[in-house]
């Protein structure tokens, strides 16, 4: 009887140990992939950047609508066209991976984007959060959160300055 009780206890311990399978990681192959992905973005290596996504990847940057990686790339290129330099800095950069209740692997990234607008040399600092799901080493879903209001203000300033210049040239 005592033996059975002991075996039961041991089994309970083992099961609870199994349940405590790690679900939070500050390093993992997926985190390394995310780091390589950010590096490709910083270097403007769009072929490598694209290779991180599954063909069917769904991306949502500041919206609930879903786009393909190619569509988001066009948007990013449009934003970056105005910048003379850009990239994620080493400051305030943080990666983690979790395995959620659906057993999905998500890499969460918090970083600082810094860029200089070519037309007026204005520097912009924008905090960025990405949450990215990996399946078999490829990104299948990506959600990005970043504030573009400062960028828009700068672009509007440049536009109105250009309009004034044009008017002066006409007169």
């Amino acid at each position: 009887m005592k033996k059975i009780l002991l075996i039961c206890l041991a089994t309970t311990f083992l099961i609870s140990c199994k349940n405590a399978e790690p679900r939070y990681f500050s390093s993992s192959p997926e985190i390394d992939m995310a780091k390589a992905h950010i590096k490709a973005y910083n270097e403007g290596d769009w072929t490598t950047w694209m290779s991180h996504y599954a063909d069917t990847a769904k991306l949502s940057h500041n919206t609930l609508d879903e786009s393909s990686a190619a569509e988001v790339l066009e948007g990013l290129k449009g934003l970056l066209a105005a910048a003379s330099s850009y990239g994620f800095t080493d400051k305030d950069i943080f990666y983690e991976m979790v395995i959620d209740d659906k057993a999905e692997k998500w890499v969460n990234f918090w970083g600082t984007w810094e860029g200089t607008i070519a037309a007026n040399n204005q520097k912009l600092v924008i905090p960025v959060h990405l949450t990215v799901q990996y399946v078999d080493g490829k990104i299948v879903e990506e959600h990005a959160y970043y504030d573009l209001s400062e960028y828009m203000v700068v672009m509007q300033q440049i536009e109105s300055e250009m309009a004034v210049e044009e008017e002066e040239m006409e007169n």
Partner: protein
Amino acid sequence: MKKIFLLGLFVTLFMACEQKEVRYSTSGPEIELVKGLLADYEKGDWESWKEKYADTAKVYYNQWDDSITVTQSMEGHKANIALLSSYGFGDNVTYEKIISDNGNTWINFWGKWEGTLKENSKTIVLPVHLSVRVLDGKIVQENGFWDNSIMQTALSEIEAMKNMPEIEKTIMANHNKMVEAWSSNDAEAFKALSVANVIRNSNGTSQASNQIEYADMMNQFHTGFPDFNVKMDSYFLKDGKSYINWTCTGTNTGPFMDNPPTGKKIEIHGFSVWAFDSDGLAVQEDSFFDNMDMLSQLGYTLTPPKAN
């Protein structure tokens, strides 16, 4: 001896378990705290909202370096909410609790914020991420990430509307009514928005030269397509003329231009230039769209001419 061995085994197992501390979960008191915080925000219960923060809590919205206090954050929320007729997060939200490498407890939140502006009833949808550090049951740090430019753009639209000359405001309002008149086949409403001898040219050919002919033409579309609907896709106004991209949809369940119904659906994109008089009434419409595209969607085919 056996007992000691078993005891040893238990201790080992127990320690192994202990080492595997749970660092990720989707429930717990800290998650309940943040859920309560959002519920307070939605109810506007600022006293209860504020109690969830430590006195020294630091709040960072869309930046890392300069924090604001909880009181400043509350004032900001209140100022934004004053512009809205309704706001809040829907049910589609995700929470997680993690313990970071340095032992801090963070609640991460992802949700969809929706707010309707009082001024123009426009609904704004923002994906929002919050990362909140909880210590001893209180929030000590909050980092928020979302694209504020979406709200800024909506507010500048309202400002632009306010600064618009009266005549442009009238034209814009009449435009919206005109689209409604088109969609509901309301000849009387159209008459109130146009001059008696209003002109319509379609792809450069005259189609109507007074209100009765214009209303007849609208009626032709509604006879052929009882669910006919017009949507304004974009709109630009300059010097008393407006330039609109529009989309028309409908199902051909009635006779259209002496042709029997096909039962087919159409979706036509077109462009119109409208001219208005000094009272804001419509004087002329020059409309451009692909007739062939509409006929193809209805199933008509083009027969090439016979060779001579």
